[in-house]
Every structure is written in C-alpha cells, then in structure tokens.
C-alpha cells in the first residue's frame, strides 16, 4: 500500500523536521577488534576466523589498540571529549550472525562524547551538527538467505552465515537531534555524511566506501508543529548505504509523516528501510518495550584507559582536515568558491590534487575531471575512481598538449581512448597515430583551398571581420584529419588575408 505523501514545500511549512544520524564506519585495521583474525573485504566465507571471532567456549576478547587509536583520532576530528576511562558493555540479543549472542559495544561510558562537526552547505554557509558520541563496537557476521524471492529471509529455503565480518571494528557516530534544518534537512544530512566520509578518509581509518558497506547510516526523522514544541515520535530508517539514499529517505519521511500528522494519525516508533527500487521507505519492526538488550559492563575487558599524553600523541599525528585542505587548495589553484564546490560535488578533489602533483596545471586537471571524465562517469553511472583513467594519465595528456604534441581535439580523443580501456595516453596516441601536423606547407595548402572554396568568408576576413574564422579552421581540420593545431591555422589564415 503506497504511503500518502504531502508536497515537500508544504510539509516543511507546516512542520519543523528534526533529524538524527547514526553512522557506522568500518575501520580499516588489519585485524579484528578483539582478536588477531585478518580482515579483508570479499574473502572466502568463514576463513577469517579465530576461536575468539567464532565465540568458541573459553575464548576471550582483547582490544585492538590500533582500533582505539583510530577512534581517538576520529574523536579529535569531531571535537569530542575523549574519556580518560571508557568501558565496553555487552548488548545481549540472540541472532545467528552473532557468534556470542551478544555484541561488544560501549554503553554509558563511550570513548568519545559531546562533539560537533561543521559542514559546508551549497551556498557556502556553515551548519554545525552536534555529536552525541562516537563509540567503538564490533560488527556481526552476515546472513545470506537462499531460495527466497529477493534475498530476504521471508520465503527462503535456508540461510548461510559467514562470520568473516564478525568482530570487524566499527565506530558508531551518533548525532544529537539536529534541529533548525527546515527545508534543508536532506541537504544538511548529505553534507554531514560527505564531510564525515572525507574526514574518515583523511584520517585513513576506513575505506569509507558506502557501496561496500564500510559506511552506513540509520536515519532518524521526526516532525513537530514548531521549534518550541517537544520532539515528535521518530522513525528510524536502518542501514541506508548511499548519500542519495539518505537524502531521499529524509525527504520521503518528512512528506510521509506530514501527511499522516495532517490526517490526525500517529507516527509509529518503528524501524523502516529504504527501498531503492521503489524510492520509498517501508515499515519494519515496531519498537516495543520488549527490546531490552540488558547492557552491562563486559567483565572480560578491563576499562580502557586513555591518558592525556596519548591523546597529545594522537593529536600530533592528525593530518590536515578536509575543510582546511579545501581552503588551502582553493587558494593555491586560484579558484572561486563556486568552482571549488563543483569539484567537491563531483568528488574530484583527491583526483585533481593527484593530477596536479603528477605535473599538470590545476586548470587543466580541473577541466578534464569535471568535463570529459565526469560525463563518462555519469553516462556509465559509476564514480570517477571506478573509470579506467588515473591522475597520472590526465597529467600525461596535459604534458602532451603543453609540448604541442596534441591539440584539444586529439587530446579529447586520447582521453576517450584511455576511458575506453585502450591503455595509457602514450599507448592510445601510438595506436591511433595521433599527432599534430607540423608541416606548414600542408596546412598552407589546406588554408588556400578553404579560402578558395569559401570566397564570401575570405572577403569578410579580409575586411577585418574575424567571426567566420571557425569555418576556415573547421575546413582545415577536416582536410588534415584533425591533426592541425588550431592556433597555427589561425596564424596562417591571418597572414594570408592581410597580405
């Protein structure tokens, strides 16, 4: 049954949305959170195991110090208070993918509490997202349901459990209720998630690939008549794993809840899930008092002691944060705010920086990544990084242009060749025999032919009207199969019409 939806503009006029995000970030440690089992994405099922990660009788967890350091770094980046003493707690519930039938998480004494993250919005303004906590916990295994209609448990013949992921370290970043978002709720959530992703990558603590589940969010949305009212009942949409999905979930939930409230219906406190195929959220489990995880401090783990000295050590290792870096690069490359934002929105900052590092000029690098290459990515619906072209390739093309070996047209064809998987720019150039014609005699002949074939144009050029120059250049290019340099052609035409 389709949900009734209110028009978005009307919904945010009538109601004040409050959002909250609980983001799980999978850390890129070599080993699991509580044992030396190797962590690797996509390994053969049930091969990355120890007695501890399988929860065998007698096995005991021991904390991975690297994971704690990663958590401290993230805490510092999120301006959190880092607890001198934090504690792991058991979250008790039975589920086949949980080897111990309890998750080891943090409850009333998390490592990071009370911080914030400033995110930059499309108009350049800054919105401060308040952070409740960023705590450490271990992941569960993965169930695969066989024989059902769509991989769901309903109707499945049987299920398989892979415990490779069980015990992989996670940090869960929980925002406080984010108020004052109004009609920008989705934009703010998207900007927050992207900023968080950039920070996590800058810290090098997670691959932060949403499509691989390294980063996933639970999205909370509630509505209230006005900002002075208490919070409304919220829905919790679980495990949304794309930025667009998060933004759409928020917009959808605002519209859905507003329609219900308008009809005098109550909002159920429930978990929902985002369905990409229908672009809707669907109701899941209604939360009841029966959800009692019986948290208590894990007696197998001593309290985590983080000294001031250790925090200082971590501070000294902190890399430049994404916003500082952006401001620095913007200045270095001489870009406007708008140009910089285009780069950010295209997810091209790292790529352009690497291209510049590989020897290209910033303007050239930007032109390629936001132009030809972005168009190719959009056409294939993949990210820039997934295309078969590297910053080094782009820098090489730029070098060939600067050396006069390629003109614009040939350069575009070369890039297209690289994108088509034909190899490096040098290989593509060689394969197709791309080269700028430097034989002025051939060009002069082509120019003469073109002027002769277009007497009216020749007249105009002679009288000083340069507008139809393109016609001559086009004809020369056609004659030389694109291998002439446009600037050289212009020069020759000019000398001929003036003489």
């Amino acid at each position, binding site marked *: 049954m389709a949900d009734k939806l209110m028009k978005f503009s009307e919904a945010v006029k009538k109601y004040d949305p409050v959002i909250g995000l609980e983001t799980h970030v999978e850390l890129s440690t070599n080993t699991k959170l509580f044992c030396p089992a190797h962590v690797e994405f996509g390994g053969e099922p049930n091969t990355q195991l120890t007695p501890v990660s399988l929860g065998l009788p*007698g096995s005991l967890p021991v*904390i991975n110090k690297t994971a704690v350091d990663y958590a401290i770094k993230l805490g510092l980046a999120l301006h959190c208070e880092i607890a001198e003493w934090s504690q792991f707690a058991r979250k*008790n519930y039975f589920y*086949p993918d949980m080897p111990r039938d309890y998750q080891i998480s943090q409850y009333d004494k998390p490592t990071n509490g009370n911080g914030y993250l400033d995110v930059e919005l499309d108009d350049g303004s800054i919105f401060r997202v308040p952070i409740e906590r960023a705590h450490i916990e271990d992941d569960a295994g993965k169930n695969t349901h066989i024989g059902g209609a769509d991989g769901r448990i309903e109707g499945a013949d049987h299920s398989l459990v892979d415990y490779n992921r069980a015990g992989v370290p996670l940090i869960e970043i929980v925002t406080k209720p984010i108020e004052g978002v109004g009609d920008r709720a989705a934009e703010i959530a998207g900007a927050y998630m992207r900023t968080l992703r950039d920070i996590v990558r800058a810290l090098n603590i997670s691959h932060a690939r949403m499509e691989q589940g390294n980063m996933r969010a639970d999205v909370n949305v509630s509505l209230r008549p006005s900002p002075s009212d208490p919070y409304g009942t919220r829905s919790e949409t679980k495990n949304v794993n794309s930025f667009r999905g998060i933004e759409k979930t928020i917009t959808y939930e605002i519209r859905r809840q507003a329609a219900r409230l308008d009809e005098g219906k109550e909002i159920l406190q429930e978990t929902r899930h985002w369905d990409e195929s229908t672009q809707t959220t669907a109701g899941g489990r209604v939360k009841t008092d029966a959800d009692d995880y019986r948290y208590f401090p894990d007696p*197998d783990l001593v309290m985590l002691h983080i000294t001031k000295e250790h925090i200082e050590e971590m501070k000294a290792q902190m890399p430049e944060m994404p916003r500082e870096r952006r401001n620095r690069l913007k200045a270095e490359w001489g870009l406007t705010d708008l140009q910089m934002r285009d780069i950010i929105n295209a997810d091209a900052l790292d790529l352009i920086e690497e291209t510049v590092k590989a020897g290209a000029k910033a303007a050239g690098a930007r032109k390629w990544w936001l132009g030809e290459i972005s168009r190719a990515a959009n056409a294939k619906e993949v990210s820039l990084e997934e295309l078969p072209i590297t910053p080094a390739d782009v820098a090489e093309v730029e070098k060939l242009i600067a050396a006069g070996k390629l003109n614009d047209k040939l350069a575009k064809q070369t890039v297209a060749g690289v994108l088509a998987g034909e190899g490096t720019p040098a290989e593509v150039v060689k394969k197709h025999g791309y080269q700028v014609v430097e034989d002025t005699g051939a060009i002069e002949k082509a120019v003469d032919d073109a002027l002769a074939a277009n007497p009216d144009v020749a007249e105009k050029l002679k009288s000083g009207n340069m507008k139809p120059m393109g016609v001559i250049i086009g004809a020369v290019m056609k004659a030389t199969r694109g291998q002439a340099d446009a600037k050289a052609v212009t020069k020759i035409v000019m000398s001929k019409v003036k003489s």
Partner: protein
Amino acid sequence: MTDATELVKLSAAEMAAKIRNKEVSSRELTEAHLDVIEKAEPSIDAFLKVSAETALAEADAFDKKNAAGETEGLPELAGVPIAIKDMIVTKGIETTAASKILEGWVPPYDATVISKIKAAGMPILGKTNLDEFAQGSSTEHSAYKTTKNPWNTEHVPGGSGGGSASAVGAFEAPIALGTDTGGSIRQPGAFTGTVGVKPTYGGVSRFGAIAMASSLDQIGPVSRTVLDAALLHEVIGGHDKRDSTSIPREVPPVVAAAREGLKMDLKGVKVGLIKELGGEGFQPDVEARFNESVKLLEDMGAEVVEISCPHFPAALGAYYIIMPSEVSSNLARYDGMRYGLRVMPPAGVPQTAANMMAYTREAGFGDEVKRRIILGTYALSAGYYDAWYGSAQKVRTLIIEDFAKAFEQVDVLVSPTAPTTAFKFGEKTADPITMYLGDVATIPANMGGVPAMSIPAGLSEEGLPVGFQFFAPQMQDEKMYKPAAALEAALEGKWGGPVWNSLKTPWLDEA
C-alpha cells in the same frame, strides 16, 4: 600394597624428584595412575573422559627428552601427570563442561594453562566431572554422572570441582586443575581432604576456561600438599596477553613461601580471624577443628587477632545476583548454530533459527543452569538493573574495601572453608537456597579478587574432612602459602602423618 600403590600415594613433588633422579619414568607414573583410575572409577566416578592414549604419548615424549637431558628450564613438576576439570578446553580432547549442550565438542585450541602444562611435559590423564558449567556445590548437577566422595561414597565431593577433588583424594591423579567462581576449588578441597587454591583474580590466565561468571572465575591447583599446589601454581600462573584481565606481573613466589612454611616458624606473621565467618550455621566439629588449627598457628609464633569484615554477610546475596547475570550472557552462545547440540523444532513448529535455538537450549541445559540464566536475565532487565545488578556491584566494592582494611592490619585472614562437612547425595538438591548457603565462606574471596586456599584440618566426628581457609592480599598469594604449609606440617606432626592416612582405599587394596 604394590609398588604402584606406593607410587601414587607420593606427593607430586616426590614423584617429580623420582623422575629427575630417573628412579621412575613419566610413563610408569602415568600408567600407575591410569591403573588406579580403572580400579577406582566404578566407585568414584571422578572422570568424564580418560585420555589414556594421549597421556602415555605425552609421557613417552617427556621420557625421551629426559633421557636426552633436554629438560633444562622445565618446571619442577615436569613429567608428573595431571587431571583437568572439564571446564578447561583441551585441543583434541572432548570438552563438555558436564553439559549435554556441548556433548561431543572437541576444541580446536588449548587453554593457556593447558599449553603451559603441555610445555612442562605433564601428561593429561583426562577430564574431570563437575556441576554443569560449574554451577553447583555438590557435582550432583553434572549432566553425565555423580562423583562420590572417597571418604564416604554416600556423600558428595563438593562442587563444582568434585571430579578434580575426588580424583586427587582417591589417588587417581597426584594433582589437578580446577576453576573457582564462588568456591568450586576450595569447598571440594574441604570436603575431600585435599588442598585447593584460588589464586588472585588475574594471576592465572582465563583464556580457555569456559566462562561461568567472568569477573569471578579463576583457574587454580588441586593437590594433596601445599607444596604441590605451589609448584602447580607456578606452572600455570603469569601474564597472558590473550586475557585482558590477566595481571601483567610475575607469578608471586609461592613455592619459596611454601618451602619456608615447612620450617614451621611463623614469628612475625599476623593472622586475622574473620569474625563474621563462624558461629550460627557452622557445624560444631568444623569450628572445633578450626580452633585447633588456629592454636597450632599461635604455637608456631603467629600473632592471631579477630578482624571484622562487616560486609561479608552481604556477599552471598550479591554473588547470587552478579554470578547469574554474567552466566545469562556467557551461556547465550550455546544456541545450536555453530557447535555442540542442535535440536530442531518438532513437526508443526516453524523451522526457524529462533525456534531451533529455543529447542536446543531447552534440551541441552539442566535445571540449575536454566535457573541461573533466568535469574540473571531478570537481574539485568531494564528497570531492574539498578536495584539488582547495580546494588550487588556496590556490595562488591564494600567487600573489596573490607579486605583492604583487614590487610592493613594482618598478613592473612582465616576461616573455616565451608560451614559443614560433605553432605549426603540429594540432601540439598530440593532446596537450592540451602545449597547456596554453603558457599558463604568461599564467596568473599571471589568477590574481592583476592587469593584464598583450603587445606585439610582434620576430620569431623563422622570421619569426614574439614577444611581450613586462608586469604591473602591481591597478588601476594605467597603470603598464604607460608602459614598454610606450616599448619599442614604441624597437623601432620599432631596426627603422625597426612590426613589421607586415615582414608580407606578399597580400590587400591584390591590391587
């Protein structure tokens, strides 16, 4: 008596000396014990599994090393066989915790203490019986068999480590390992006339000890002499990076302390009698044996004073909140998914994972285990947590403070190990509370994390052993070994030999 019978009646230290002097091989010792096991088991039932084949292979491997002179650096007990409580995982040897839910489970790894035992060349004779998941005080809650007390087979051996205590008491093994969560090493020690030690919490790695209540569990030695316990304590003790609660310090010098104690000089040792652990509820002859032993300590020069530990009476109640709470979580993993028993729901019941878990746990756990899981689940529930688990933790803090204050005044504390001697089978199973009350004197050490040990202090009027308990400050386990060894020597002097000289051993005599 045959030579073999003479041999098994030696202390582990004496056996070790004979091995070093090449008077006896590890194989001969192991065979002698396997022989006793075969004869004693029909009446004692101490073992769930006898691993004769691997024990003999381990003995031969040691003997080979010993012949080649490659035993340098091995512990003193090298080559001496040992029995292991079936709460400790042993690679390749079925480990069940005396529960049907783990029937047939063969661990793929060794507990840290087992690795150390193996490295010491000590053959493992087998796995001993216990109350299911170490939950009980009589070994009657084993899902497999009822272990008898060698002093009177109509009486329980105590629990949960009745198997290890009876095996050592009946000369089936010279030494054994136990686990002690609320007295499971010491109370069976008291009931069977053996020595049982619960080391400092964190002094011996728990890695590979099947968890009952993680904040209370501790592996420790079972033996017939204080020195044997000390020797085994040194083999198994020390820091283990696989156990986060393991204390990163050297093993306290317990062997030196035990040897020092055998000199029977306790001048300068201050002993505190715990006022709250005596009187009402304590059997008169238990108190009589206790007082006689205190007198002997004084005779050897110890200064004895009475010490009040005002919060000890609350320890039992708090323990029976904290322990089941941890049990309810620790035993969640036995769900039929990955190992052990799996019971599918009957036809007509949806064949879901949740139902499979429920049917498996219903069939696999015994009543006492279920009782504790239910109690603990309740105590941790939202709305009850603060009143139950929270309050119990506060009591625990007060007990820790009681110990700290007491040890400002004295070197060791003493009490009877248990208020009674071994009771008869079935006497207390109908009323769990009376069974729980028997743990009153042993529980404070677990709640406080301090080391404690029980040694035999003579016999009751019925002819059943009585236990005498020492407590020492945290990570100062040696402080109890010295007076314990001194008292053991004094008692032997008084009786003209060790307490087990009074033990009738028909299973040995028939040989």
